[in-house]
């Protein structure tokens, strides 16, 4: 689980150019003004690539915060 959190943080840091851990943990589409559709596409690409999972379009639309993403990836990892 710690590995998943770490990688998700690194991905969010890379996509949204945020460095501090606390800022990343509180990151969400509601509060981050740069979080647009292109960033969402890059985020989904990164998650799929790093974790070797496929994210359906409907699921992708719901991945809108650090917490939700970590939970989603953890569930997919367990299922695999």
């Amino acid at each position, binding site marked *: 689980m710690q590995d998943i959190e770490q990688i998700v943080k690194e991905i969010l840091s890379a996509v949204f150019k945020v460095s501090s851990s606390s800022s990343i943990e509180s990151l969400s589409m509601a509060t981050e003004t740069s979080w647009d559709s292109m960033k969402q596409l890059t985020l989904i690409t990164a998650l799929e690539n790093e974790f070797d999972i496929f994210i*359906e379009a409907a699921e992708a639309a719901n991945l809108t915060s650090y917490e939700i993403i970590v939970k989603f990836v953890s569930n997919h990892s367990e299922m695999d």
Partner: protein
Amino acid sequence: MSLNFLEANNIISVENELETKKFILAASGQVEKLDVFLKANCILNSFNCQYTTLPFNTLQQYISTASECEKEHVFLLFPWDVFPEADWRTGVTLGDFSFDEAQDRIDDLIKKINCFTSSHVFYIPARTLPVTFNYELSQQIEHQIILSLLKINATILAENYFSISSYLANGCAISSKKLSDVSSAIAGSLIVKRNSSSKKILFTDFDNVMWRGVIGEDGVDGIQCDAEGAGYTHFIYQSYLLKLKSQGILIAGITKNDDELASLPFRCEKTLFKASDFVTLSASYHAKSSQIKQILIDLNLDVDSAVFIDDNPIELEEVKNKLNDICCLAFPTKDEGFPDFIGQIQRYFNLANVTEDDKKRTELYKTRYKSSIINTEQGANLTEYLKSLQMQLTIKQCDATNFHRTLQLINKTNQFNLNGMRLTDTEIIELINKENTLFLFTLADKFGSHGQIACVILSENKDVEYFVMSCRVFQRQIEYAIIAWLIKHLKLPELKLNFQRTPKNIPFQMMIDNDLYTINSSSVLKLDTTSYMDKYKNILNLFEVDVDI
């Protein structure tokens, strides 16, 4: 090279001064997902890329109008770009066609692509919807697409690069796991101009290129280049060099070693490629760019006719920096990268035909070639590049429980070695017990750990009794940083070093060959620490230094 997202992102985050290649990435589907990977793979091939894409599903229209056909294009094609009926996104259509009608469609697409004067064509033979009434006919048509595209030098990528889930979900037909592989193929193709003439000479490094291992540390019995085990790719590489030589390509050896050591594997019959197969072999501790330049002058060849292959990114950067028009290729560190690497070499040495005279070219050049003077011209200034490596130097003080790597370094290292003296376990423990100090240096950079690469032993009087460094990490200014750190740590006005000249410690001799060092009548080497720190005041800024004392 296959990168994951974070690796690719790290590569593109570092500023560089590489030239930029512009092109149009023409595909019918969504290709934005390729962006990070494409940019990173281009940087790994020593250029930046700037490209535009087509609006979704407009490829057919674009190639039909053939606008901007003089610009460089990368076409990324799928079966439905030939047969829209095969497109998963439209569902199965009614209607049918014969093999001849299919061939007409294929020929039509190829004719349109040929209007683009500078194009790189990639094709992913994805599974498709049934396009005809007959399974075997559908298969024949799929094969015919590939055969026809091969005739225009298209690169056929693997079927498993296609992801139907991704294609149906967001219009990107490439699997997320294969984005880097597609990007790598595109980047590799872009570094060779289409229809450019073949290069004429290949300069090859030795350690970890001609063989696995470092001849100066592992010895002739420790290096591997057999058709089995860890040396297998090096065996294949040597066999390919032999083939290139038989086709008229000149092969030159270029290594940072002394002559005798460099030629030892060949004299011991260890290698498939023999010393006599080289047009020349340059073993010197001077900058490789200078040696390459001298050889090209002596052979009357242009820089842009040359390819340089090395495993060390620092050497590649140095040569590329000094000789802009040379093509540099990194010998892959992982076997998975080896097929692409061989493919790259083949693109550079792409011959139209081979004549009987071509086969004798090496011998012909050898008779003309006079022994070259060693070119001592300074190599490229790599300060900015070295900073971009994000090197971390960890310094650990060793005691009687953890000195083993120090011992190994002292007893294996010949080239960067203060005096060539060896130690036994007992002797090193005695030194520790007599309050000598052992420092072990570990290096890491953004590509990973290089392990424990240097050690220093100080006497009770703080004189440097032993100082060795692995030749794997030459060119990184580490030796200068170690001395700077010792000076700061010891706070002495003068540093004494127990130096002895040996036949093999030429790199060390080169480091001290300046006014900072003096040898007194008792052969003690002294370093003026104030002058040294004036000259090298910024050297430690190249590293993140972590001290564990």
